[in-house]
């Protein structure tokens, strides 16, 4: 199974020492140069999502201003900022969910892997099949737990043993032990935290390349929240996770990289989480993080 292979690769690379890591990354960049396919990426790590001058308007209101950032593969990238600063909007740019909003207009380039998702030949439905999404409010379908997890497999016409994939996904979402005897029962009968983990299982079942999470724990109690946080930590071994949160402690706990958006839809600073929280470059970011405003 491809998921298996992927996880093995990642475990290996994670255990390698930093010098080795750097070498690999260098060769990656070199390979990119030789092929001459893309501009050289400035990030040290291999990036999977790369925004290049993204602007978003809702009618005439600009919600995002010239966002340029590259999100590294197989890491957790957090996006923080006061509410209304465009975090969700940016998340929706990645899988083109903004297309559903009539008022929204997006300009700029956004690469997923090597492909600009705003190229005219990109089918947004096909794009969304490679990007999983978890929403703020748990939103399982009023179907059985099994059917919820198998939904992506069914609509994307993915073959293979669905029973196995469903079990695997539920295990990865740390829900299997709690629901293995009630797979036929409605997903709505679960508690809020379980529902959110069910939604995560649903999102990872078709084995997406990137998982987007929009404040996945903000509707949950602290215990459920910490379960979700542990889960995100584990998911990052196999997947690239981009998570929006308004909770700075959460960002500090779980993310490798942090992007700080501030009012007006600006990306003010994007760096290693440690740097952002301990030694931010911009005063505004420091003010925000220390709670002076926002």
């Amino acid at each position: 199974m491809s998921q298996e292979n992927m996880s093995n690769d990642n475990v290996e690379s994670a255990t390698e020492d930093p010098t080795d890591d750097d070498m690999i990354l260098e060769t990656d960049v070199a390979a990119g140069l030789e092929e001459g396919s893309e501009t050289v990426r400035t990030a040290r790590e291999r990036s999977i999502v790369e925004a290049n001058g993204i602007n978003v308007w809702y009618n005439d209101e600009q919600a995002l201003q010239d966002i340029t950032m590259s999100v590294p593969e197989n890491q957790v990238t957090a996006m923080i900022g006061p509410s209304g600063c465009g975090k969700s909007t940016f998340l929706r740019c990645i899988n083109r969910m903004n297309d559903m909003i009539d008022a929204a207009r997006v300009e700029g380039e956004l690469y997923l892997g090597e492909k600009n998702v705003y190229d005219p030949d990109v089918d947004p439905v096909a794009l969304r099949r490679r990007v999983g999404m978890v929403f703020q409010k748990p939103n399982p379908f009023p179907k059985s737990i099994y059917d919820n997890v198998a939904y992506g497999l069914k609509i994307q016409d993915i073959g293979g043993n669905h029973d196995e994939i469903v079990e695997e996904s539920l295990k990865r979402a740390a829900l299997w032990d709690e629901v293995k005897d009630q797979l036929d029962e409605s997903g709505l009968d679960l508690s809020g935290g379980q529902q959110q983990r069910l939604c995560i299982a649903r999102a990872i079942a078709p084995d997406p390349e990137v998982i987007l999470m929009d404040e996945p724990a903000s509707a949950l109690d602290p215990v459920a929240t910490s379960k979700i946080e542990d889960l995100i930590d584990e998911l990052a071994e196999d997947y690239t996770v981009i998570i929006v949160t308004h909770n700075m402690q959460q960002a500090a706990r779980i993310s490798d990289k942090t992007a700080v958006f501030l009012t007006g839809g600006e990306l003010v600073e994007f760096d290693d989480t440690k740097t952002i929280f301990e030694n931010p470059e911009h005063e505004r970011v420091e003010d925000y993080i220390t709670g002076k405003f926002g």
Partner: protein
Amino acid sequence: MATQDRSSYAEGFGQVSRTVGTVFRYLLLASTLFGIAVLAILLVYVANDAVQPLTADPGWHLTFFLTLVLPTLATAGYLAATNLEALKFGSMTIGLIVVSLLFSGGVAIIFIEVLAPLVWFAYVLAFAVPTVLMIALQRRSRQLSFLTRFVVVALAFYTSLFGLPGVVPSVAALVQSAPFVPLDWVLLTLTLGLFASAPTASYAAGIRDRRTGLGVGVLALAAVAASPFIGPPVFGIGTVPSVILASVTVVPTVAFVGGTAVTREHARIGILVPLLIVGGALAGEVLVDTLGYAGPQSWVDWQFLTSDHSGTAEDAGLYPAIAGSILLMVTVAALSFPVGVGAALYLEEYAPDNRITRFIDVNISNLAGVPSVVYGLLGLGLFVTQLGRPSGTIFVGGATLALLILPIVIISSREAIRSVPDEMRQASYGMGATKWQTVKNVILPRAFPGILTGTILALGRAIGETAPLIMIGAPNVLFSFPSELSSKVSAMPLQVYSWASYFATDAFYEKAVPAGVVILVTVLLAMNSIAIVLRNRYEQET
């Protein structure tokens, strides 16, 4: 000033007048009660005329009071005080029995008068064969393109239903020309029996496991198959009604009772209510017979339900009108449901939000308010004058009534579709579903109970309409039974109207009309109660 304020604090907070509010409240109460009270008085008056309870011996009343009313009321009262869930279960069972009996009656009329079981069986088979093929092909969706599958399935349906002239006979024709024709009840057992036992089996499988489900399904089918041997000798009804009664009333009721008893132990005791009602009625009947008390000379009786219209009130019956109403309903539902739900889906999920859409929006609401006479005129102009169909037939009547309720079906279906939370759509699109997949897998299943509720209520409106039927030239009285789409049709409200106008003698006024009204209202209430139960269930789930 300030000192005054302080002193009033010390004395208390004072009083604020509520006189106007109280008066207003009782005015509201009065206006609420007014409509209900007037309607209730009217219904009691009509029911009194129709059933004539005072013509019965006092002994008759006393017997039934003691055997039926008293035990039922006592038990219901006890349950209401101690175990509301059980009472609910009991009354649901009674409701289910009543409604499914009405339904059985309707189905029986159709099979006895209109649709020969052989023809029905032939068409069920003709549908089943390509459906099985379709499901089999669906499984192989990865090997075959959508277009291939579509062509194969369409061809299979066409061949199965109509045949290819000169090459392959249709399944439908093949079955009907079979040299050996099974008995009617065998055909009905194979169709209706299966339709009843398959959902029962899956219901049981949902409660326990697959094996239990299979066992229950086989048992249900066996019960239906056994009914033609039990029905005629024990209850004196024919084999066909026996099978229908078994599959439409007995199997669903037993399944509901059994399922609830297994899953909700607490509510089990509620079964006493239906048992007491049925048992009390039977005991009362036996007692009254042996003691020789005469019952009321009710106008609503078996004779009234099963006779044709007649010039004398004593012999007049509602049978052709009941059957006409049923056939009209089937036609109306078949025409308005797909069109209405389709339009609602388009407007809610697909239509762009522009001026044309808003224009259509407003006009659908306007159409819902157009008087029914106007729809009758439309039906007459469209179907009879323009399309040249004969006037007053089932098809023309059904199509006209379908037009009449179409705006209501659209509006209520839109409401149901709109009530599907946006999060569900987001979740589905976020998984990479297309619009069609989202509509099929998420929106329609979720909105379906609401759509069904709205459609049933709309059908209730159609069943009571008289004016459009008069406009399209439906005969006021019908002495024979409508047997195909192109035969003339009457309906219950029309029959009552003609008794009250053309045959306006005292006898008709006092007897036939109230009896007809009681039947009509009973059918309407039954339909509305189905809709309400559905809606309550749906609201509980969400």
